[in-house]
């Protein structure tokens, strides 16, 4: 009988984790370039020790995966706001190594280098940083990421892709790191003056919140009932004199 409580407990713990993942998605419903995270459940089968043909399934949440669907595009009109349409990531040079992001809210720093909101330089297609001259005025960036200003070509914003996109590890600040070697992306378009919004579906996530919250209530109820049953049983057995 203890097994039924432990199975419910495994479900309960998975539900709490699901709530954490869902609440992180909702907290980032307005975060540029954020892609939502989903938990995947499976069952962990064990055989009952005594009766070999009886199996029990514990709930497990062994993996979470990233929804790589494109977010909604939002027009901002800022020269250095870039959005990637299609698969691909911008390459960012950080003190901890190369990072990848789809959040293209870049700007120039005091030296004219294209940087992220944290001040990390954005890498060009050939792997160097991109620095624009002082007096540049009309900067335009085309679909392939080529930057032109004052009629001259000034560099190309690098866009890379990976063989296994799911392997990318989130490191916060809408950036990812990867052990894989990035390859130049092929099927993409860079949009200037646009940002890719978060791909979190508010309504779906809200429904998930409801489901999880109700499931927790019913699982608790179940555990409570099981305890009740145990208590009654032990009460019944614990009255030797009246039998």
């Amino acid at each position, binding site marked *: 009988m203890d097994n039924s409580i432990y199975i419910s407990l495994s479900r309960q713990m998975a539900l709490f984790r699901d709530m954490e993942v869902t*609440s992180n998605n909702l907290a980032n419903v307005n975060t540029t370039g954020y892609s939502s995270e989903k938990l995947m459940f499976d069952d962990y089968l064990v055989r009952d020790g005594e009766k070999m043909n009886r199996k029990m399934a514990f709930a497990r949440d062994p993996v979470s995966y990233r929804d790589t669907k494109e977010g909604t595009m939002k027009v901002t009109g800022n020269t250095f706001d870039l959005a990637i349409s299609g698969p691909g990531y911008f390459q960012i040079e950080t003190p901890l190594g190369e990072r990848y992001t789809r959040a293209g809210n870049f700007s120039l720093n005091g030296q004219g280098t294209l940087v992220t909101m944290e001040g990390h330089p954005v890498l060009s297609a050939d792997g160097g940083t991109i620095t624009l001259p002082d007096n540049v005025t009309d900067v335009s960036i085309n679909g392939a990421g080529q930057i032109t200003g004052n009629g001259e070509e000034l560099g190309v914003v690098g866009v890379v892709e990976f063989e296994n996109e799911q392997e990318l590890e989130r490191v916060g600040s809408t950036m990812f790191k990867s052990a894989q070697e990035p390859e130049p992306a092929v099927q993409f378009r860079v949009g200037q003056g646009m940002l890719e919004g978060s791909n979190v579906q508010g309504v779906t996530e809200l429904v998930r919140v409801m489901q999880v919250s109700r499931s927790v209530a019913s699982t608790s109820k179940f555990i409570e009932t099981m305890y009740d049953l145990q208590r009654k049983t032990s009460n019944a057995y614990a009255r030797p004199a009246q039998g």
Partner: protein
Amino acid sequence: MRSLNIAATGLSAQQINVDAISHNLANMTTTGYKAERPEFQDLIYQDLRRVGTNTTDQGTILPVGVQIGLGVKTAAISRNTGQGTVQATENALDIAVQGKGYFQIELPDGTIGYTRDGAFKLSPDGIIVTREGYSVQPAITIPDDAIDVSINASGQVEVLVTGQVDPQQLGQMEMASFINPAGLQAMGDNMFLETAASGDPILGNAGEDGFGTLLQGYLENSNVNPVSEITDLIVAQRAYEMNTKVLTASDEMLQSLNQSV
């Protein structure tokens, strides 16, 4: 329980979002105001199962892990430095900048402030000053017998003095531009200060390479787009509501746990 704190980060982020939107809407008709936009980023992640770890001694690895994010943070509030519309005022000392460039203003403490607000006035001594009475650099004094002041597209100030046929040239307004104008520090009164992020000011005359031109008798309106601000406000409000819902649901989950034990 992490989801309570995660929802709290979501609520405070949306609060900042609404704060920024209301600031933009409040400054919709402020001369030379540039719209602000908060930028959000996800917080750090906790690895419950790290991606890429070995699952067996045969070298098979975990293709995806379990990462739980801890919410959202406000990374920056960036300024949209795009051109605002210009409005005719027919005032001789109202000047709009079309394109890049800031007027240089000497602040009372001697530092130089930068502004796009060209609603200038004359001090009792005839010096061109801002609304606060701070002098525009380089200081230009209009003689008291001047009939008419004209400021051309490149910032040359000329006056017509009583009894003279040819206009008299008084000086040249010098403009400052920055590599990263979004990095300037706003200090209120439509004034900005240079920072390490904005880079050093590049001085030059209006109309030269990398500088916009001046327009006398006009003022630059704010570049706030009310339609997009209202849309953003609705989105922010809904996002706030969703995070409140997570807060109550998490609370109910804890409640049902407490009641069952």
